[in-house]
């Protein structure tokens, strides 16, 4: 089966600009996750969707980050405006159900200058 798809793979922006990332989960997977992985750290969950509803967004910096999964399939994560500390790899993952194995995408590497 096709894996989790993410685009773009790389993005370089200047601080205060906006950026958006896209994720297409594995077909049939109801649960979708966005993680932020800063260099030298493990992935940190930003937001978790079950179908098109938010299950957990407790670590999402809501003043600048937003995410949506309108039709319960693909998802976008937006940062507006970006800060230097947002430089990281943004990982999308999906699972068939909550408590099922999470499958990760290749990630989007964001550099904020």
């Amino acid at each position, binding site marked *: 089966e096709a*894996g*989790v798809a993410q685009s773009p793979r790389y993005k370089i922006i200047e601080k205060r600009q906006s950026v958006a990332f896209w994720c297409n989960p594995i077909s049939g997977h109801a*649960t979708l*996750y966005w993680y932020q992985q800063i260099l*030298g*750290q*493990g*992935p*940190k*969950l930003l937001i*978790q969707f079950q179908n098109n509803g938010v*299950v*957990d967004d407790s670590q999402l910096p809501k003043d600048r980050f937003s995410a949506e999964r309108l039709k319960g399939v693909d998802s976008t994560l937006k940062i507006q405006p970006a800060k230097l500390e947002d430089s990281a790899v943004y*990982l999308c993952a999906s*699972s068939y159900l*909550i*408590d099922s*194995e*999470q*499958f*990760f*995408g*290749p*990630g989007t590497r964001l550099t904020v200058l």
Partner: protein
Amino acid sequence: AQRVTQPEKLLSVFKGAPVELKCNYSYSGSPELFWYVQYSRQRLQLLLRHISRESIKGFTADLNKGETSFHLKKPFAQEEDSAMYYCALSVYTDKLIFGTGTRLQVFP
């Protein structure tokens, strides 16, 4: 607070040597622990989870609730085991909390 600690950033061994990647966790509930692996230029992927009690690619990990540990072990390391290894703790709604990772280098 829930936390996962991997004390070693880098672990270097020679091929055929035993390997132990350390992981300690902090969680007041019933823990579910995982090991994820990321090979060079590949995606992060699940290696094993403690409830399955499987041996994957020769690796095993035993949950020790008394020591709050979930160390990953392999008796004889292979060069293809070289990768980044992350220990993760699942809490509440299947939220994963990752450690900072240990890079395993296996020399020929």
